[in-house]
């Protein structure tokens, strides 16, 4: 059966990889193409490239950097951040992205998800859900985690599947950058209520966290950024660890 995927995430601002804690306090980590290529060599199954620049200049840099990153990779590349229209999706796909991740726009204008899915196929459309725990459930936040949409994360996950998303990139804002482990309850709930692959994100700190998110929460893929950039966890060693734990991974 399909191997569990380990995904390395690059948060890119003005052409450079950065990483923060709970979406804030960004620190510089390096060049996207160089890091992506290193992660491929170490055994990453996929690269996610999230553009967090907001400027027009940043957008131009983005396409150039996506192209540069895609041309050194022979594993899949997902690109997201600041996508506003079907045309943006098309531009990213023709510059080397396999999949495009939609976040704020999916909430503002759900028809973009449906149109992109119809035009490029569900497999090209990832919807990113940034969720924060509120009382008994989780709420969806947009605009880099700054705006509460009032939407329930589980209901929203079901909705994006209906709209035609091929995959969900589920980030726990509470756990992002903390290295305290993935939000297992959140991941389990979304996995249970959807029939498309779910990528868990936010909180990876050590190999045990990956085991739990696969075994206890049923995630199809696990994403991490900071621990790979800082070499707290090396992907090769992580995969060996997972294999030892009886989880199918690509060697």
């Amino acid at each position, binding site marked *: *059966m399909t*191997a569990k*995927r380990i995904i390395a995430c690059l948060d890119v601002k003005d052409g450079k990889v950065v990483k923060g804690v709970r979406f804030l306090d960004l620190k510089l980590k390096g060049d996207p193409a160089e890091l992506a290529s290193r992660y491929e060599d170490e055994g990453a*199954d996929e690269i996610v490239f999230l553009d967090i620049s907001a400027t027009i200049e940043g957008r131009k840099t983005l396409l150039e950097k996506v192209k540069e990153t*895609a041309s050194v990779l*022979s594993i*899949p590349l997902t690109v997201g951040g600041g996508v506003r229209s079907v045309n943006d999706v098309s531009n990213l796909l023709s510059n080397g992205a396999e999949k495009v991740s939609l976040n704020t726009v999916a909430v503002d204008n759900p028809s973009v998800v449906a149109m992109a899915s119809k035009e490029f*196929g569900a497999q090209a459309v990832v919807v990113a859900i940034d969720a924060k725990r509120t009382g008994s459930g989780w709420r969806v936040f947009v605009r880099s985690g700054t705006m509460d949409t009032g939407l329930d994360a589980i209901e929203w996950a079901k909705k994006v599947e209906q709209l035609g998303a091929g*995959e969900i990139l589920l980030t726990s804002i509470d756990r992002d950058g903390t290295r305290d482990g993935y939000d297992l309850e959140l991941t389990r709930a979304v996995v249970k209520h959807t029939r498309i692959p779910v990528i868990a994100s936010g909180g990876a700190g050590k190999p045990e966290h990956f085991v739990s998110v696969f075994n206890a929460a049923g995630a199809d893929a696990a994403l991490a950024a900071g621990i790979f950039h800082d070499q707290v966890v090396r992907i090769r060693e992580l995969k060996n660890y997972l294999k030892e734990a009886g989880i199918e991974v*690509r060697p």
Partner: protein
Amino acid sequence: MRALVLNYGVGNLFSITSGLRRAGFSAEISNEPRDADLIVLPGVGAFSAVGEFMLKWKDTLEDLRNSGVKFLGVCLGMQIMFEEGNEGGKTRGLGWFPGVVDQIRGAPKLPHIGWDILRQRSSCMLTEGLEGRYAYFVHSYMAYTRFPPAMTSNYGVEFPALICSNDAVGTQFHPEKSGETGKVFFQNLVRWLRS
């Protein structure tokens, strides 16, 4: 080696073109089929989206094939080598392999996204060194065929992953996105073209 990647308006042409270049091809993207060492039918998108293109160029593709041009179909590009597809309405394919392309029945989740193992079922030049390796798949449809595939993979159901005839090869996986497995496949492809 000259590879011509056909642009029928669907999918990511950048990745397959980069993959071919990494393998030593001079790769060009074209809206029209014409002479080359290899014509590549690229992947991703709905079968029906290619219908119009096929209608227009089917005969040209046949002629090129008869004149000795070899073909590689990737994902959707492999699927359109079959007789018919049911994605987005019934659409005729090239009919180079017998069978129908339909949604994967019995799959745990769709789309099937991720890495699965290749298993050899019969032998051809393209399969060398690939048995037991992981390849990257992204699809919801598969070929239902009586034609014996060279390799299969399994996603709740066994499905054709690599098919080959003397002058046409199709992969359901994406060699350009399959890391080392892809590199081995492209080496095999170059050898096949030279043979």
